[in-house]
């Protein structure tokens, strides 16, 4: 904590000596932040470099030796995508994630609209029940739902169906909570005026509420997309056929087979990371908003 003690310069420095005092005074902050940046970056960079190193090099020397001996290859990615099925697992991740994002988005928006702008008995009680359901862990569903899916004879566990349905259900409490709290902030006059003009609830929802709520809906959509894309546990339980498993499950299989083939594992880990990184970089604002809304609001 001593580092925090020295930064009491407020007025802009006028003389050279003042400027030097200021730089020295602040250097502990810079050193600590620099150290933190290193600890947060170096592990990921090490793995990224390893994913491009020939596996013979990887076994012989540490990744940090690339500074003196830079040799890179794409063969780890080629191998992991084609020979090790990460390519088809990537497609599976897309097939799992897109419907598991769109379905809860639609269903939660509709429910949130009802809870915010349609008057009906026990509305607030129902909303409190949904707030309570936020805390139901996914584990509660594992046994009953696996048994039910199995006994239904629909083959949901060997198609994407079971993953879609369960991801949707467990995303709803948060989505309804988030969107309802946003919807009630919309101007009441606007909605009442539309009602008086004879607009139906469906029309009000489609033409007023949804268009005005794009930031909140986008934040929830991004949050849910990354949640499903990054999920391992739900896929382990509900995607029980190898041909539908996403990358997160596939990579645990690779870990079992090639525990020390780091070049291969690194390439696989980065294949999982590419999409979230792109989403994060391009939509960071919405992403952080979603996160803030989920916890602080």
């Amino acid at each position, binding site marked *: *904590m001593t580092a*925090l003690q020295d*930064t009491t310069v*407020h007025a802009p420095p006028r003389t050279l000596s003042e400027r030097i005092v200021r730089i020295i005074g*602040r250097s502990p*902050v810079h050193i*600590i932040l620099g150290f*933190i*940046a290193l600890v*947060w970056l*170096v*592990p990921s960079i*090490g793995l990224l470099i*390893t994913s491009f190193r020939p596996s013979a090099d*990887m*076994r012989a020397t*540490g990744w*940090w030796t690339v500074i003196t001996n830079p040799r890179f290859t794409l063969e780890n990615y080629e191998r992991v995508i084609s020979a090790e099925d990460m390519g088809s697992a990537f497609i599976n991740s897309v097939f799992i994630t897109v419907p598991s994002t769109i379905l809860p988005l639609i269903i*939660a928006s*509709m*429910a949130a*609209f*009802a809870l*915010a*702008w*349609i*008057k*009906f008995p*026990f509305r*607030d*009680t129902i909303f409190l029940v949904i707030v309570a*359901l936020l805390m139901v*862990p996914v584990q*509660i569903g594992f*046994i*009953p739902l696996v*048994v039910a899916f*199995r006994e239904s004879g629909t083959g949901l566990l060997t198609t994407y169906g079971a993953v879609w*349905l*369960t991801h949707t*259900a467990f995303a*709803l409490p948060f989505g309804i909570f988030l969107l309802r709290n946003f919807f*009630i902030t919309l101007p009441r006059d606007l909605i*009442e005026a539309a*009602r008086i003009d004879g607009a139906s609830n*469906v029309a009000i929802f489609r033409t007023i509420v949804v268009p005005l709520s794009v930031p909140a809906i986008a934040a929830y959509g991004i949050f849910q997309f*990354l949640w499903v894309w990054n*999920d*391992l*546990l739900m896929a382990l339980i509900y995607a029980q056929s190898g041909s539908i498993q996403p990358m997160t499950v596939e990579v645990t299989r690779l*870990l079992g087979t090639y525990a*020390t083939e780091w070049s291969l594992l690194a390439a696989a*880990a980065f294949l*999982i*990371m590419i999409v979230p*990184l792109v989403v*994060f970089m391009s939509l*960071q604002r919405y992403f952080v908003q979603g*996160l803030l809304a989920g*916890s602080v609001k």
Partner: protein
Amino acid sequence: MTTASPPADAPAATSGTSRPGRGIGWAALLFLGPAALFLLAFLVYPTIYTLFLSFNRGRAGGFSEWVGLDNWITLFTEDPNFLRLGFPPSGALWNNVLWIIFYVSLTVLLGLIVAVMATRVRYEAAIKAIIFLPMAIAATSIAIIWRFVYSPDPETGLLNALLGTVGAGPTAVLGSPDTVNWALIAVGIWGSVGFATVILSAAIKGISSEVLEAARVDGATETQIFWRIIVPMVSLPISVVTVTLVVNVIKLFDLIYVMTAGGPGASSRVIAFSMYQEAFPQGRFGYGSAIAIVMLLLLIPVMIFNIRRFRAEAVQQ
């Protein structure tokens, strides 16, 4: 309308007059129906089913033989993998306690320190983005990143390469019951500090600079300002972050599954891992159900906290 605090914002009570009364019930049903169906079928029904199954042997993939409290008694008294009291205590539940104590407090503290420091530098946005990045990526990828750092081979693993430069022998931190939980908690902190930083930094920016200036004029040191002004003034966001992190711990699974699979032995298990392990690879559905109910029970205080907080907000509006 039995609940005490109807939010005052919804359409006025007259909304029933602007739409004919007969339409209202149908509209609510149309909009709320799909969500209600999903929640009843996939959350409410399974909760009841799992609760009952926790009193059943649950061998043959469903209900088989009622065993009363057997699963519960075994869980808390006869299963050292779940809870072994003694000195030192061990087991999955105890590991969750370690996680709650160390992961939660250090994440909040580090998040707060970074948030305070970052406001003083010009590269604030960059440092926050760097530290927040792990929030966006899969726990599976984080697990591989850190298995690689922890690799016992000093020609591969960064940690042992660094230890080698100071003359310490290579150690397999994930391979020893003495170090495995600390190594995992460190990774957990690495993954979550960004979350704490982003939320707390938003709160710190809300503190008026006049208060801080006044304290400085009165001769307060920066350490005093940190503990006596900043920490109390952001105590609500701190409690929100703390609760979120505690929930993270109770639900923690992916990281453990990929990094250690609960090992060596069962020394790094946590409850969510035990639930999976007992119910699926072992096929003990009744026993696994009891663990799932333990998770739910641990989350009920948070449930109450959320409802209270929501009601308080509704009253304020």
